[in-house]
């Protein structure tokens, strides 16, 4: 039946989304990944994601917070690293 396979499909998408969630991916990242690797249309991913969000509000709230924090931390760290490298490389060229 169409509905069965739909249900199954949605379940699969949910499963994949959950996998992405274990990697702290954002919705967009997830959409991209699933589209690229599983040929799932981004709109489908996004819809299922949104519906999951509705059903699991608290989870997603906490989740969003978490990844935002991580992202900002990461950016910060990377930026600092770049600066350090830049610094050291400049010094080297000076001495060079």
């Amino acid at each position: 039946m169409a509905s069965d396979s739909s249900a199954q499909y949605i379940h699969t998408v949910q499963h994949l989304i959950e996998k992405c969630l274990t990697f702290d991916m954002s919705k967009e990242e997830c959409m991209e990944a699933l589209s690229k690797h599983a040929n799932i249309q981004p709109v489908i991913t996004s819809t299922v994601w949104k519906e999951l969000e509705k059903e699991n509000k608290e989870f997603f709230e906490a989740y969003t917070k978490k990844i935002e924090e991580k992202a900002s931390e990461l950016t910060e760290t990377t930026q600092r690293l770049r600066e350090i490298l830049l610094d050291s490389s400049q010094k080297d060229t000076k001495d060079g």
Partner: protein
Amino acid sequence: MLAVSPLRSAKNDRESEMEGFTVEENGFLDFSGGNLLDSIDFDDLFMGINDGDLEMDSEILAEFSVSGGEESERNCTSAVSTDDSGKDDKVSVSVSASDLGSRSSSLINQGEEIVSKRDMGHATVNPSPEETHDSKGRKSSAQSKNPLGKRKVKVDWTPELHRRFVQAVEKLGVDKAVPSRILELMGIDCLTRHNIASHLQKYRSHRKHLLAREAEAANWSQRRQIYGAGSGTGKRDITPWIAPTMGFPPPAPMPHFRPLHVWGHPSVDQSFMHTWPKHLTPSPPPPQPPHAWPPPLHPLLPPPSADPSFWHSHHHVPTPGTPCFPPHMPPTTFPSPTVQGIAPTGMYRVDPVVGVPTMPPGQTLPEPPVDFHPNVDSIIGDVLSKPWLPLPLGLKPPSIDGVLVELQRQGISKIPPSCA
């Protein structure tokens, strides 16, 4: 050598007066009756003490005789070990000071001081640790068997117990969770603070381990964006980095991604089985690497009706509308044109550059020119080929109708095989 305990009542006729106070001794003090303290035969006490470097103060004596007057309402749960009986004149007295009147306890302490000084190699006495332990809820009876007061009662961390532990920790906040608070929240007497503390330590280290792995994996996608944003201006070093730091086995289907389950969730039985295997006896564990503490992502997740049976069985209770996919269900062939999309490469892409910031001078962080998702293919392939696998997080499924309706609004009818 002589080990002397002033409190020693060698004979069990003492016991009626001193409950729980059992002394093991090659008794040479014979108390005929009366108070223990009265019965202390000071001559005997001093016997053989001569050669000791004992600070035998007269004060102590005074103490003894003065306190002799009180036979306390002592339920002395001091106990003496019964081992070593044949060997030495060894007296180990472990005293629960809280049970004793203060004078008696000081007496005992002093007495034990004597003992320890007298017979340092032998007598093992530790009044204070016992005192503190006692207040932690450890049963005195358990203590009474402790020769040294240092032996810990082995705690059996059942899933139920552990679940309560995790609940308590989550409530307090993992970083702020203090063993004594946890103990309170759990409200179980047979646990000591020490048990909790060590369990907490383990829990935390596993969590860190897991989060670190998660973070690492997530970083790949993050990194991609970041590198894409800041292109390297310097010369790019095109060395074929095979992402050694990742540590992902190349062709293998990434087994270690699977165990990232939420602790305590019904569908998690596979992963947490490994650390606490004794307690969980659901289906036989699949051949996954033992992965102790799946990311305890969210205490919110486990269904409010945290049914203990969830720990033990892998029964995903299907909510109406979700397809049922119990393990024994024959793998449904599902119209999966999507599978085509998964080149069964299994191999992760070896991208020319991985941006590990240890570059020779003159270079900035290079950018990986290609999308860097090492293992996504295998993960996804897994999910697609084995639809009966449990959901990693076990979120509440979306309403199917909701999804369908929404999609139709967007112009999509389900099952988009054709639109691949």
